[in-house]
């Protein structure tokens, strides 16, 4: 163990012990808290404490994943246990603090769960339906500690993995551990992380970049933002480890402009790491040096694609590059680069600390570790659940998520983001598994599960997904730019029941051309939502197309930024495209 780390450990322990000696109030005030009034609650907490002159520690933390009960007020008092209060409004803050902190009599009627010691009439945190079956690795500190507090992070075993790597292991040993753990990228493609790092490690260049991708434009997925708002240090530690294993010199965290809680907290955490010798020259007294910073990008979904991301980091339009050369050979500013998802990197510290066998023992044969599912839509308990791979969809949606809030039947799930597909109810027995889901035509993608009940039209939702894909197409290559527009035209007609007899065939042709002719995944997968809906809900789709649909579809207003200009989508487009050719799938790219 390095001397430097020993010092940090001692300080962390003494600070943690002190923290436990007086009341500690934690409240999630990130993006997710803000949306349900946590900023007003924290203001009230501070004013109550000031007016009563109480000696209490107040911490603004991130989301704990139990989004349905936010704002969550988490109060720990020596002698009166730790209790989490749900759906807290500014009005009851005074009462809760008076009862719990001053009178040591926690108001049970407002409590959501207790942690540690048991209380009569209060469920333990792990017994909440949403927590049953969770196994938290990447979300290990969610809602538990201050986001940029190094002492608190170390108290939760933080930086132990990094210390181990830097003092006892060579870079290739670290790489070997990641390889044998079976960790696969969590961004959607599910490529082996160890192999990916290996490509970069094999490049002898002096300057190399690790890019951490938190563009996360996927509607329905919010786990990357959640990790950065609640525990950015786990990402930073993972990024340094990736840097060490691949001999990289720089790390860039890439976040969408406007998501201020993740941005500010990651920036602050990086700053803290620099001042504690955890970033910069000779990390923890070792020979290894690594620089890190946050770069913002404008609103662009395609910026999440690895080569478009590099263009955006360079400050240009986020349009994908031709490959080869691949990023590991020619990346950002021409330096060899490696792009990782936030979740993937957040696993690395725990894999180092607990060993690759530990990680490989969790999950299924080919999908190791845990998956973070983001539940939203028609669901009783929206939020984040981290479960071992192999958990069934049914367990996640019906048990942990609580099913539809008004007791209606769930009709389908939309998975894998706007380029993903639909999963019908009779497929809910399926296990979470990259390969099993892919072979069923759905993607797990980055983990977004949008739950839709019986009142949702699959045709209407497909149109929204295609409208999204059309608007977000960067416009560089025509199969995607025109293909998404044509699909949207056709789906507009379908929603109104005015389809033309040739529309089904036309969609397939357009989809085929997008798949074969597009430069990046946006166009290649752009037909997925339609193909998946046609496969899963064939009769509903056809009925709707020809005016025999059961669910009324309302007028759809799309942003002006789309090609359609001011025209309100919902009116039958007058022009009908004629696609009289289809790319040959066996066609080979011309050699340059």
């Amino acid at each position, binding site marked *: 163990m390095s001397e430097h780390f020993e010092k940090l450990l001692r300080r962390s322990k003494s600070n943690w012990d002190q923290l436990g000696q007086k009341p500690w109030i934690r409240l999630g005030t990130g*993006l*997710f808290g*803000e*949306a*349900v009034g946590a900023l007003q609650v924290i203001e009230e907490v501070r004013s109550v404490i000031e007016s009563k002159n109480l000696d209490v520690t107040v911490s603004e933390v991130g989301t704990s994943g139990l*989004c*349905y009960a936010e704002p969550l007020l988490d109060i720990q008092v020596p002698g009166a246990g730790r209790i989490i209060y749900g759906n807290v409004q500014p009005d009851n803050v005074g009462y809760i603090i008076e009862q719990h902190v001053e009178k040591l009599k926690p108001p049970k009627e407002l409590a959501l769960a207790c942690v540690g010691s048991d209380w009569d009439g209060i469920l333990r945190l792990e017994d909440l339906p949403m927590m049953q079956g969770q196994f938290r690795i990447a979300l290990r500190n969610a809602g538990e500690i201050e986001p940029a507090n190094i002492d608190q992070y170390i108290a939760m075993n933080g930086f132990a993995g990094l210390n181990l790597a830097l003092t006892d292991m060579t870079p290739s040993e670290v790489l070997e551990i990641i390889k044998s753990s079976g960790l696969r990228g969590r961004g959607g493609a599910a490529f082996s992380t160890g192999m990916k790092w290996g490509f970069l490690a094999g490049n002898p260049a002096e300057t190399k970049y690790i890019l951490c991708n938190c563009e*996360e*434009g*996927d*509607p*329905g*997925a*919010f786990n990357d*933002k959640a990790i950065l708002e609640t525990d950015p240090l786990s990402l930073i530690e993972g990024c340094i480890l990736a840097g060490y294993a691949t001999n990289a010199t720089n790390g860039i965290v890439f976040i969408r*402009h*406007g*998501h201020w809680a993740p941005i500010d907290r990651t920036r602050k955490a990086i700053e803290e790491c620099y001042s504690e010798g955890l970033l910069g020259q000779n990390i923890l007294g070792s020979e290894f040096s690594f*620089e890190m*910073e946050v*770069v*913002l*990008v*404008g*609103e*662009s*979904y395609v910026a999440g694609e690895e080569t478009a991301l590099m263009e*955006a*980091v*360079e*400050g*240009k*339009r*986020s349009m994908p590059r031709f490959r080869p050369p691949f990023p590991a050979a020619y990346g950002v500013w021409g330096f060899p680069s490696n792009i990782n998802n936030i979740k993937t990197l957040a696993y690395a510290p725990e894999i180092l600390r607990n060993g690759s066998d530990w990680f490989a023992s969790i999950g299924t044969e080919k999908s190791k570790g845990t998956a973070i599912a*983001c*539940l*939203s*839509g*028609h669901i009783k308990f*929206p*939020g984040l659940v981290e479960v071992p791979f192999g958990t069934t969809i049914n367990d996640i949606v019906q048990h942990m998520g609580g099913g539809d809030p008004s007791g209606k039947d769930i009709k389908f799930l939309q998975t894998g983001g*706007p380029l993903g597909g639909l999963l019908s109810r009779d497929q809910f027995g399926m296990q979470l598994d990259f390969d099993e889901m892919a072979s069923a035509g759905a993607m797990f993608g980055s983990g*977004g599960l*949008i739950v*839709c009940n019986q009142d*949702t039209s699959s045709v209407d*939702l497909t149109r*929204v997904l295609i409208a*999204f894909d059309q*608007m*977000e197409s*960067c416009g560089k290559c025509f199969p995607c730019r025109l293909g998404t527009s044509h699909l949207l035209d056709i789906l507009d007609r379908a929603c109104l029941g005015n389809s033309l007899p040739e529309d089904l065939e036309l969609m397939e042709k357009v989809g085929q051309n997008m798949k074969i002719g597009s430069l990046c995944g946006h166009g290649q997968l752009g037909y997925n939502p339609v193909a998946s809906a046609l496969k899963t809900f064939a009769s509903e789709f056809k009925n709707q197309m020809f005016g025999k649909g059961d669910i009324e579809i*309302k*007028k759809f*207003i*799309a*942003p*002006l*930024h789309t090609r359609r200009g001011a025209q*309100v989508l919902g009116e039958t487009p007058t022009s009908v495209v004629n696609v009289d050719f289809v790319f040959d799938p066996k066609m080979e790219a011309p050699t340059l």
Partner: protein
Amino acid sequence: MTTSPNALRENARNAIASQPFKTITVLSSLLSVQDALGWLPSEALEEVSIAVSSTINEVWGVASFYPNFRFTEPPRNSIEICWGPTCHVLGAQDLLQSMLNELGLENEGETQDKLLGLKLNTCLGVCPHGPAVSFNHRLEGKMTKEKALAITKSLVKDTQDV
């Protein structure tokens, strides 16, 4: 209250200079100006091209690509409604339609008195709390028509009082 071209230029220059990061690019400078001024006047685009030694065409190219940027003065209050699939499933279109009716708009745009602007956002990022709306960049989740109209009215009232 229109700001003079020289003052705009000065403000833009300050915004470009006050980026506390290592990586300064066309995009980062444009975002910084947009945050400080609320829009990108043509003076700012010129300043960015000077500061990062780029051509004005290149700067325009980036600025017109991302929907973050606007090229006219912003309205006094801005409302963004999320139209992503989760919010859609939870009734974002109804919400949007009633807001448009209330403001007398057909689609995204601004009221004639420039008090309010309405924009559609592809994903505000708080799916578990959908439908989501942001009022002057402050997020509000679990939005209903009634709540949205009440907040909008109070925004207008506060602005008129000033």
